Structures are given as C-alpha cells and as structure tokens.
C-alpha cells in the first residue's frame, strides 16, 4: 500500500493552504473533503471583513494553487475512522478509513475539519425558524451575495433592521462560554453592506461588548457609525415576538441608559457564533484530545500550536478555535512548516 507523506482531513481554506504548502515542498499529500467541492465555509461568503475583499478571490487563489500542484483530492468523502497504524510495530504511521471503507496510510495527518455555525433554533426566544423575518448572518450573506435583501413584512415604511450579536457565543445557557471572535466585526461589515443596498433603512446592532481587536476593525466600526449611521445599542435581546403586520417586536435592555427597549423591526439578523464541526468534535473525542467545547486541543498553544498530543498528528485552523480567514491561512502555513520539519527529521 502506498504510504503518503500527509493526509489532510478537511478541504476548507486551512486544508487547501496546507496542502499547497506541503506539495510546494515536494511532499505527497492526500486531501479529503466531505463536500463535493473544496473551499469550506468560504464558499458561502460574499465579502470578507474588514476590507470587503471578495471571498471568491481568496478561494480562486487557493484553487489555482491546488490546480498547479500534484495533489490527490478525494471530495464527497467523509472519514469513518482515524487511527495509528498497528501493523508490525510500525506505529509511526497513521491510517484513515474513508467513507467507502477504503484504508489510506500516511506518515502524518493534518486535521483541518473546521467549525459549524451555531444552530440558532437553540435560542428559542429569538423565534428563528418560526418568524420569516428572523434570519442568520449566514443567510444574510447569501442575500448580500445575490445583491437583494428580502424583507418579509408588509410594512410600507423604510425597513428597520436589527443585528443581534453573540447568538450562541458567550452564553452559559447554551454551554458556549467563549467568544466566537468574528461576529462583532462581521455584523459591522454586514450592517454597512445593508445600508449600501438599502440607504433609507434604519440599522441597529444590539451587542454585549464590541470586540474590535483586529487590524482596521475599530476604523470600520467608526465608519459604520459616522458614514453609514448604523446605531449600536449595548443590550441583550431577551425576546422576539410577531406583530399583525408580519413585523417582529424585540425586547432588550439598553444597559448604558439602564432602561428597557422595545423595537418593532422588519428584519432581524442573528449573528450566529462558531462551534466545532461534527467531524472536529468526533475526532477530538475519539482521539481523546478535546478541549471543553469539543475543539481539538493543540499540544501547546504558545510553542506547539499545530501539534497534538499524538506524534505525527497535526491540527490547523478553526478545528482548534475560532479564527478569521487570514489567521486560518497563516496557521495552515505554520502547520505545513511544522509537518515538513517532522517529515524531514523522519520522526
């Protein structure tokens, strides 16, 4: 049986970038992706924060590199099992059983199985799935991609649109204490895009804290307020209910003014957080390397952030925590470098 240098599980931006970097250096790589196409969640996105780069441009660069490299890709193929090979004491190898039951062997494995969006139906009080004018940020992005925002209400006035932050993040009730890190700035980006498409609309973001930590994030937040007149209210929304005009009423508390608010709006956008993907959670559990939330814990987040506690098994991207696209690509580069070093040293 052919033993490849590295099997990469997950063909999103992290898997694609790492595959390119490893094949650039002459290593033999086998890339698995469960969907029919490579690209992961990047395929669902229109423009990226904070500079409105087209997601398809990034995807094209990754795909062009893939096309120019000699790389074996298995799309539409899920992983049934990942284990250390036990044949004749040759325990340094890894064995992957794919969805068709076929066995593949490699000297190293890189897990880039990424994240899933939080299922908004778990926050029942927001009525997602019941009221047509409550949508997720993922659905809004799809509408932005199509250049048309769908307003379900019968209201003839200029639409009133609300963004709700931290849906499924920093929320003890759903068991996710962590911050998803991308939703604050993503809401700012999407609010600006909504104002560009519907200049007469009233757009308000309801937030707990606004975490504008990245380069140019704070500037975009200021721009949203100053140039696009997006309102920001520090308050957690407690409930969303319907009105007779097919609009919805949201209730919140403005915690800066210490007063309750009720707003009647035409569209609510739930900024859904990130959770480990099903495969990420499954692998982290089966190989006993899970953090408290099901993400894959790296060996050392300071000095060995692409390694796991298992020799020859590496991790990159959002399979280990919440990262934005530039961070994911940098992390994949670092993983490829670490794997190359491991392979060259023959460890």
């Amino acid at each position, binding site marked *: 049986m052919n033993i490849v240098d590295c099997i990469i599980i997950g063909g999103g931006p992290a898997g694609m970038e790492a595959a390119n970097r490893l094949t650039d250096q002459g290593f033999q790589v086998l890339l698995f992706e469960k969907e029919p196409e490579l690209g992961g969640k990047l395929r669902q996105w229109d423009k990226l924060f904070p500079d409105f780069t087209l997601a398809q441009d990034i995807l094209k660069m990754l795909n062009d590199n893939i096309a120019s490299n000699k790389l074996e890709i298995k799309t539409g193929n899920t992983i049934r099992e990942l284990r250390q090979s036990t044949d004749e004491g040759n325990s340094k190898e890894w064995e992957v059983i794919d969805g068709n039951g076929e066995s593949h062997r490699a000297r190293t494995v890189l897990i880039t199985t990424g994240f899933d969006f939080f299922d908004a*139906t778990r926050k*029942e*009080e927001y009525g*997602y*799935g*019941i009221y047509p004018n409550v949508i997720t940020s993922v659905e809004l992005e799809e509408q932005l991609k199509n250049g048309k925002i769908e307003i379900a209400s019968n209201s003839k006035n200029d639409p009133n649109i609300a963004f709700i932050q931290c849906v499924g993040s920093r929320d003890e009730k759903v068991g996710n204490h962590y911050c998803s890190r991308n939703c604050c700035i993503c809401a700012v980006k999407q609010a600006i895009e909504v104002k560009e498409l519907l200049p007469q609309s009233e757009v308000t973001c309801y937030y707990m804290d606004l975490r504008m930590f990245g380069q140019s994030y704070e500037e975009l937040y200021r721009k949203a307020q100053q140039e696009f007149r997006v309102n920001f209210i520090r308050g957690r929304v407690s*409930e969303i*209910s*319907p*009105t*007779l005009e097919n609009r919805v*009423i949201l209730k919140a508390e403005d915690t800066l003014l210490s007063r309750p608010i009720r707003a009647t709006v035409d569209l609510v956008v739930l900024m859904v957080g990130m959770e480990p993907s099903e495969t990420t959670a499954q692998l982290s559990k089966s190989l006993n390397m899970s953090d408290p939330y099901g993400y894959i814990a790296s060996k050392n987040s300071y000095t060995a952030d692409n390694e796991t506690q298992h020799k020859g098994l590496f991790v990159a991207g959002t399979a280990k925590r919440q990262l934005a696209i530039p961070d994911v690509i940098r992390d994949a580069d670092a993983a490829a470098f670490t794997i190359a070093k491991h392979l060259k040293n023959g460890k």
Partner: protein
Amino acid sequence: MQKHYWNEYQKEIAADRYFYARSCIRQTFFPGSETAFLKILQDELGKDIYDSADQHTCSGIGYHGDVVPFLTTSTVIARLFSLMTEAGYKNYVPSCITSFGLIVEVLDTWKHFPETLEQTRESLLKATGRTFEIPENVAHPSDIIYKFRNELKSKMKYQLIEKSTGRPLRGVEHIGCHYAKVFPDKGVGGAEFPHVLAGMIESWGGEVVDYPERRHCCGFGFRNYLVQANRGYSVSNSHKKFESMAPYKPDFIIANCPGCAMFLDKWQYTIAEMEGKTYDEQGRGIPVFTYEELAGLLLGYDPWKLGVQIHQVQAESFLDKIGIEYNPDEKYKGASGEELEHPQKPSVLKV
C-alpha cells in the same frame, strides 16, 4: 418549513392512577374547575384519581412570599407525598401551578443535593412520625387534559367554532410562570413556545393567537399583589398584555394558573373602571376560563354548575358564539335551587 419548538419538549405524563392535590385558592375563584377535572377524569376517561380529605397547603404562597423557608416547604410537601404513599398512589397531580413548580423545584433540589432529602425525611419523621416515597410521575392537571385532548374531543358536544359563521374561535393561551419558566423540560412545549394549552385549543377546533406579549407574566407575581402598595405593577402587567392581544380580537383566554386566570379576568374590570377601556368590541371584555372550564363547556356541562358566572367578565358572549345551551334563569341559583343575591354591575364593563 416552520419549526415547531414545542415538539422537542414532550414530557412523560402518567396514564392512570393519580393522587390529586387541590389548590388553596382555586375553589374560591373557579369553584367548578377542580370538580370538573375529577368528573372529566372519572366519568369521561374512566381514570382512577384519588382526592384525599386530609390534604393541605404546599406552602407555596408563603415560600414565594419569602415567609416560609425552603426546608419547611420541602417538609410540608413531603407530608403531601406521605399521604400519596399511604393511599397507594405514585403519580402526583397538583391542581395549582405554583404547587407544581414548587414540587418540581423540591424534587430537583433533592436530586442535586441529596442531603436536603435526608434532612426533609428526618424533619417529617420527627414532626409527624410519617415516611414517604418520591412520586414516580408529577404532572399538572393541564398536562393530563392535554394528553387526553383528542380522546376528549370525540366526546365533546361543541367545538371552538362560531356557530353562525363556521369561523374557528381565536384563543389566547396563558401559561403560569411556574409551569415551565423555571424548568422548561417539565412543561409540554417548554418555556418559550408552551403547547399544553395551545394543543387543547387547536385540537378542539380553535386558533391560537400569537401576539407580541404572549410570554409576558400576567402580573400576579406574589410580591406584586400580596404587597398592596405594589398592585400597580400587577395591573400594569396585565394591561400590557391586553393592549398587545386586543388587535388580534381574541374570543377568549385560557390559563392554567390560579393567579393568571384570576388576574386576567378581574383586572379587566379594574382597567375598565380606571380608564373606561374594555378589550372587545362590545364592551364586555374578553372571557377568561380555566382549561377545565373550557373542556367542561365543550363537553356540554352546565355553565352555571362549572361556576363561570363567578368570573368578572361574563361568559354569555362566548357561549352564544358557539351555541352552548344555558338557562339564564338558573345563573344565580344555589345548589338547592334558591335564588342567590345578584352581584352589583360594574360601571363600564357590560355584563
């Protein structure tokens, strides 16, 4: 496809052999409801339900009014359980929603802090010499009516349909806070989209009104009402709900909590007196029923024997819409047929 959240909150409801625990206040406000429940279970459904003569309060009003501590409450509840054990039953059915919520809270506390269960056993034994078993199933009577709602429908003489037009009647359902807001998985449908009363309305031919303040508290809130100076909070909460539901033109309200059914009924009189406002087009107010009264009316029980004439908002507009038969001359007759004193008429609300 529209999501049905309530499907994910289905609880186990015992099918027979119930120990019934009555409410402290329901027999005053809704004098026919508990009797109607027993009649429905025994006569319509053929169930075994035991109504102990030795029962007493669960102390819920004192507990929520901050005058009875937890261990005392849990010991009082343990005594009720000992009556159930003594009678040979394992399925506990508390009539009052606060009792239901409190029992769920006590059982949960015993589960997570077993030392409190031991303390309770010891306190009960020392005080009364009694022992008890934990119920195998705790269900509110509204859960049981919900469970058998389709079976009951087949026995019903009327449906929630306007006789003259064939229009389904619009019902506001209001769930007591202590039913599912504390422990969502203990209520049919959970806390956000409870289905226990909505399921009855839908099964019996009506439509449920989904209005903005559907989940808002009726305003009873023990401290809101029991502390006289706070009653303005109580009425303002009900006011908020009425203002919110009125544009949907509901034909009736049903509730499964003693406080909710009472305040949603009686505050309509208060608001009418204070503001001159009523919440239906005829100025009669929106009739409020308990789920037992509603089931009883549809089963063809005599409205006056169900005690609906005791309500502040009178039931005739609702009865006439459906075509439920009643004798106006019997309305204020006592059990032995004598004519009782008629209540005074409010100045605004039409009766």
